[in-house]
């Protein structure tokens, strides 16, 4: 028997999910929570094989609930079920530890498949999410360039690209200009840029700089 906890603030959704899931003889909706706090509390008190978690909850953001549940029980199995399309929360939910992400528009059968998949220890990825992951992967080589920077190197790049001088940057960061030049040199090296202009061009074309106007 697969014990399931449904977390959703809408009673209709909870009842509907319960009806649908209970049609499967080996599924049992053992608990229902209407808020994030309630879900956290229930998971502390009972064991569930699977948690169906909504993103928009009245008290806490679903993603925070997800992180908290994972922190308290790292091997807990969670599928995020949300009305948001995959491209908004899909990848983030998986990164935060969910084993599946399902859009509420999906067919019932898919939900059942996903639950079985996840309970058996695998991850479930819908076609839409797979496509998005693939896009991320292909675009990654570019993104990785500035993701390898430390916070301060990144900050240096952004400030530089918004037209700040070395001295101004050092005043903003409250450091000596010499240290800022070290950051700049490391940033250029990590990103294999030859000069500041290339760095500024990169920052602007990747919208790392917010324009003041």
């Amino acid at each position, binding site marked *: 028997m697969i014990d399931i906890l449904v977390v959703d603030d809408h009673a209709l959704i909870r009842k509907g999910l319960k009806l649908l899931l209970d049609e499967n003889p080996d599924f049992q909706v053992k608990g229902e929570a209407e808020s994030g706090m309630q879900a956290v509390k229930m998971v502390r008190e009972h064991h569930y094989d699977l948690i169906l978690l909504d993103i928009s909850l009245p008290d806490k953001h679903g993603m925070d609930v997800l992180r908290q549940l994972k922190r308290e029980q790292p091997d807990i199995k969670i599928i995020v079920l949300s009305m948001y399309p995959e491209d908004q929360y899909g990848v983030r939910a998986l990164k935060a530890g969910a084993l599946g992400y399902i859009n509420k528009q999906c067919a019932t059968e898919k939900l059942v498949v996903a639950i079985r998949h996840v309970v058996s220890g695998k991850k479930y990825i819908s076609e839409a999410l797979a496509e998005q992951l693939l896009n991320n992967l292909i675009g990654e080589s570019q993104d990785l360039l500035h993701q390898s920077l*430390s916070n*301060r190197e990144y900050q240096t790049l952004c400030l530089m690209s918004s037209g700040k001088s070395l001295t101004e940057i050092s005043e903003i960061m*409250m*450091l*000596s200009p*010499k*240290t800022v*030049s*070290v*950051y700049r040199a*490391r940033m250029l090296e990590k990103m294999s840029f030859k000069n500041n202009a290339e760095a500024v061009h990169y920052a602007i074309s990747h919208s790392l700089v917010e324009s003041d106007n």
Partner: protein
Amino acid sequence: ACTISTSEEYIELPDRHAITLFRIFQETLNNILKHSRAKNAQVEVVKGDDHLEMIVFDDGVGFDASARNKPRSFGLRGMQERVEHLGGSVKISSTTGKGTQIAIFIPLEPEQSAGNSSRNNALGVESS
């Protein structure tokens, strides 16, 4: 949590500098422990060709200028004096409620090639 990052694996310094930095490092961590109520602290050491900067920052309660200048608070002043002795400077930026950053800047002799320094030693040149 406290994390440490350095610009180079191994940074070699004259003893005087190393001791000063160590004392200041102790002092800052002490301050963080005693006063800041911070959850996280980060220490960063950045070495350039002719300088070194140690940056210690935390996400604690911070403090304002009046607390810094209390007649009985010796820690920060001591820190300042030690650093000035080496020709460096201390920058303290703190906002109440938003944590504190302390940046210790110390000038260094420009890096010499190995040949140069060993010749100095051979000639018995002493730096006073």
